[in-house]
């Protein structure tokens, strides 16, 4: 089975946002980056499917030169090869732009299954995978917590809200978006890291920057919806103050 996994490089959880001079985007140069967490689960699921069914796992990412870091990491975890759709403007691209860029690079490959995370931890549109499925003309399902493949068909367990689930069956080729927690992640071994150095990263240059579907007119820190009383001092002082306020002010104890 030939499996593609679309991954994204996003700012780390510890990153403190700073805006660029336009006030409509972040200072990308200031950020440190990591693999988007749901995509890590998608990659792990692809590696497990390869273990069960054989075949090949190809990781794909659309972004500036820096995204090679997460492609190398995915290769070190066990992906067979990588595709990098390389353009500076992909750093701030919306879901449609990314889907179009990936579609252009992947359409000749004839994948049986395409996996990606349910959403990215940066822009968080939760759209790219489904739009890519539309572009490729394959059926999709989203927020998947279990995958079974037999007789050219995919049976996937969709997570619904509030503890509900639903199984959905569709023919291959298909695309699914993976929910975090579907499996236990593996990390790269030293052997994997060494092997990754010899694996291929195919560079693709997209034709031109397509029209974005969303124009960011302003970006800012969120305004607080509540008056938050920030308590400070030594741990002991904070504990005394918090317990006093929770019992006297909030009457919550």
């Amino acid at each position, binding site marked *: 089975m030939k499996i593609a996994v679309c991954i994204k490089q996003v700012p780390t959880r510890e990153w403190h*946002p700073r805006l660029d001079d336009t006030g409509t985007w972040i200072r990308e140069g200031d950020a440190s980056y990591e693999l988007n967490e749901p995509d890590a689960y998608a990659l792990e699921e692809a590696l497990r499917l390869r273990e069960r069914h054989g075949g090949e796992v190809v990781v794909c990412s659309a972004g500036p030169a820096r995204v090679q870091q997460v492609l190398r990491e995915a290769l070190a975890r066990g992906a067979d090869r990588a595709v990098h759709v390389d353009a500076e403007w992909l750093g701030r691209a919306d879901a*449609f732009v990314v889907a179009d860029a990936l579609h252009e690079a992947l359409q000749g490959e004839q994948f049986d299954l395409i996996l990606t995370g349910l959403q990215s931890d940066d822009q968080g549109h939760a759209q790219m995978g489904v739009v890519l499925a539309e572009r490729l003309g394959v059926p999709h399902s989203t927020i998947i917590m279990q995958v079974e493949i037999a007789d050219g068909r995919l049976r996937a367990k969709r997570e619904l809200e509030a*503890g509900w689930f639903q199984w959905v*069956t569709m023919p291959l080729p298909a695309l699914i978006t993976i929910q975090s927690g579907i499996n236990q992640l593996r990390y790269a071994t030293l052997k994997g890291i060494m092997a990754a150095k010899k694996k291929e990263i195919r560079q693709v240059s997209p034709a031109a920057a397509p029209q974005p579907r969303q124009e960011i007119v302003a970006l800012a820190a969120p305004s607080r919806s509540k008056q*938050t009383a920030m308590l400070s001092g030594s741990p002991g002082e*904070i504990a005394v103050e918090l317990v006093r306020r929770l019992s006297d002010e909030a009457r919550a104890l």
Partner: protein
Amino acid sequence: MIGVLLEHDGSRVSRASWEAVAAAQQLAQGSAPLACVVLGHGLDAVAADAAAAGVGPVHVVDDPALALYSPDAYVTGVRAAIDALKPDLVVMAHTYQARDFAPALAARVGAPLVSDVIGVRRDGDAIVLRRPMFQGKLVADVKPVGAKPAFMACQIGAFRADALARGTSPGAVQRVAVDFGPTPSRQVPEAPFREAKQAVDLGQAERIVAVGRGIKAQEHMAVAQDLAAAMGAELAASRPICDNGWLPMDRQVGSSGQTVAPKLYVALGVSGAIQHLVGMKGSRTIVAINKDPDAPIFEVADYGIVGDLFEIVPALIAELKKR
């Protein structure tokens, strides 16, 4: 004209969908007409519930192909309603169902979709939609670009269903005829199910101590357990903790777990991803302890402590034991 897609449980329109109607009314400002669209099979009760609000006509796509949700059939059904109504904007709730079909619909129509919307305003002829980015560390004002209708999906809980302006006369119910063809959907859905009976009803808890990634390791869960015991609270967690198996799934708070509104909610090392916030922001008093001063959890907290939970929580337990 603004179209609003309403989700339902087979008899009543969901609360999240009424919130979407409230957002649509805010954008319409009384001038643009509103039309509701419901999809499913056997929709008389749902259509009556939607019509009773008097917010506009109710267009019903009722077909056996829609008895169980599938994305292909929903795209076909909503597209038929759009072709009939020709709205400038289509509003819905950002539910798991919307995440599943709306991007496909927008791709097929060639129109933009703005998801997770928490605020709306007009700027002349354009609309400006506010949405969180970077895990809620920033908020963006965005303008949809491209063909009409623009699609927008409202974050659950961001708009107030009780702010809805109800009409005096019920909306007219009209059927939309749709040909689903011989294969309505490539995806064949099975009936939804619940994994296991939830052993814990966190919704009944007066106090909750919730643990997030900041707890770092399973052996540290005991600290949170001790605090819960000292407060007379139930122990709960954000999704990553339950994914790791450090607490059972039925103690998860958030969009994929339980929704709670206790008297006191103490968040230990919970960053406050929106999926968690939607499950707890209705709590009466919220305490957040986190080492990251930018953590979005502080936006909903009444009391915030920036610091090391492993120093603060033991002090807190000691102080509570003095009482």
